[in-house]
């Protein structure tokens, strides 16, 4: 095989996610009364970027064959924290942003410590830490409120040069700063390897534990970037339980749509980002086709159910029934 065909085989899932998104977005824009304008793109981008950050967080953990059911709650917690800290002048705002990102990282580190070094099952451990994170969020914001540095918020949610949505640029910057170095580092490769086959990775002497730990920690950081952006969009902090749960759920949906294998070892953050975009476009499609908004949760649920069921097609290729039990 030629080199590019290897590359294509590796990136097939990601390219499929990009394709799904492109088709859906094209249908959306074609039916939108305003058409393909900078404003329509900006609104769509701002809505999608939040889920994209949370989905990136989920992807890092899913690649190691784990799961983080607390990402939505870290997202909510950092939103509440940002509504207290990211205020005032340039200096205070910078410190506030650093503090918010630091606390997101700390949440991720705590998850990592409990799951990797405490050897607990990620599902139960992250549900429990998620409850604690939500409790802290509620402590910070018993009632919705607070404020944020509006200059910074408007700069990051507006348009660069009047065309490009600034939130998309920020998303790209995070991908360049966090994902690219991670996926190319030894620990990043070890994260893939341990998700693909942990015994094999162990036998090859890869730093499995450090890789998984880093994945959980970075997931916390990425979720907190999402929380920061939520504050920039809403100008307030709110400890909304339903919203936290919904983001956790949608992050899994985005990851699946983005072609990241829930069994670990396959997929990329880029795919998950486009999965998130596609998932958000589903909601927008309902809107342009004038569906009753009441049907939106059901529609999203059905799409999620179909998306996870598609993974079952691999079963038709199974020659030996024992392979069912992996």
């Amino acid at each position: 095989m030629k080199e590019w065909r290897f590359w294509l085989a590796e990136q097939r899932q990601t390219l499929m996610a990009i394709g799904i998104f492109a088709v859906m977005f094209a249908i959306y824009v074609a039916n939108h009364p305003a058409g393909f304008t900078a404003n329509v793109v900006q609104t769509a981008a701002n809505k999608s970027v939040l889920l994209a950050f949370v989905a990136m967080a989920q992807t890092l953990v899913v690649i190691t064959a784990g799961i983080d059911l607390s990402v939505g709650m870290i997202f909510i917690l950092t939103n509440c924290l940002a509504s207290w800290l990211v205020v005032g002048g340039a200096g205070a705002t910078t410190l506030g942003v650093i503090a918010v990102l630091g606390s997101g990282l700390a949440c991720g580190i705590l998850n990592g410590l409990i799951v990797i070094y405490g050897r607990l099952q990620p599902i139960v451990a992250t549900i429990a830490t998620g409850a604690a994170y939500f409790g802290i969020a509620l402590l910070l914001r018993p009632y919705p409120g607070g404020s944020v540095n509006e200059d910074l918020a408007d700069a990051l949610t507006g348009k660069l040069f009047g065309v490009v949505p600034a939130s998309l640029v920020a998303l790209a910057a995070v991908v360049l700063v966090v994902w690219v170095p991670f996926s190319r580092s030894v620990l990043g490769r070890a994260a893939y390897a341990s998700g693909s086959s942990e015994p094999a990775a162990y036998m090859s002497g890869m730093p499995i534990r450090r890789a998984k730990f880093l994945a959980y920690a970075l997931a916390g950081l990425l979720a907190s970037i999402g929380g920061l952006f939520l504050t920039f969009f809403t100008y307030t902090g709110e400890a909304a339980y339903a919203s936290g749960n919904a983001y956790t759920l949608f992050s899994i949906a985005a990851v699946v749509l983005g072609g990241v294998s829930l069994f670990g070892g396959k997929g990329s953050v880029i795919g998950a980002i486009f999965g998130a975009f596609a998932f958000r476009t589903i909601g927008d499609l309902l809107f342009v086709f004038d569906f009753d908004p009441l049907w939106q949760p059901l529609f999203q649920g059905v799409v999620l159910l179909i998306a996870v069921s598609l993974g079952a097609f691999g079963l038709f290729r199974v020659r030996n029934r024992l392979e069912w039990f992996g």
Partner: protein
Amino acid sequence: MSDITGERGMERRLPKFIRRIDPAVATAFGCILLLLAVGSIYSTSFLSVEYLLQQLKVASFLGVIATGMMIVILLGQIDLSVPWSVAVGGMMACAAAAFGHVGEVLAIPFGILCGMAIGLTNGVGVAYLRIPSMIITLATNAVAQGLMVVYTGGFSPQDSATTAMRYIATGFLVPGVPNAVFIWALIGAAAVFAFTRTTFGRSVYAIGNRERAAYLSGVDTRRVVLIAFVVSGGLSAFGGVLLAGYASKAAQSMGDTYLLPSIAAVVLGGTSILGGRGSYLGTVAGVILITLLQSILSVMQMPEAGRQIIYGVVIVAMLLVYGRQRRTE
């Protein structure tokens, strides 16, 4: 885990009946006594018979739901569709009650049947399509939520519970002992019988230990997994029916507060989250433990935020004490 030989050596010196006790179950019962002691400091009425029976009644709702969760966890799977299975059970039973006399008779079975339908979807996904249980149950939970939102039009449901539903949740067949406690006792007895005396129960343990081995031993593993999820969905919905009877009506988010407690009750009771190990006595202990913890936090007038934090911390702490996995290396 490293000093297994040391533990064995110590165990051999103990009398046989003590050796047979699961340390996790013993720890859970120890914690219950500790909580009772702490509670009696805060309020003198904490140890009164009426208060404890009231707690037992509240515990029985969680107990019914946790029984279903336990079957699924014993398989090494998990059921995250509990919140909306509970809500669907309560809401559909109340909805059926609105259809005159026939509806009133069929209210309870209809609610349970709707929960079993959710369980059936989960079971088909896990057993036949081999989708990870965590994912498919999250998805069916979302679909159930969507269906209920469409059904109610986004408002809180208007139908109220039938007299039969109220009776089984809050009535008294024997003076002093709430009916809900009897219901839990009946379901618990059925679960113990199923786990220890039936092929189905033994197959559940076998699959939890190693599905491949169970399959090769001639167990129809897919059917057992399917049935387990249907039972879990049905029990969650039945818990919802009881809750609706208790509150005289169903509410949209009535199940949200039952997901973490039901998992925690099972795991704190010593059932391995990886499946294959655990006893129903442990789950009973876990349910009572969680209920008492909630009750003490409310007696202490702890706000919701503090409750969530303590909840998460206690569960992680107890799991770290005895719920750790073996080293993979």
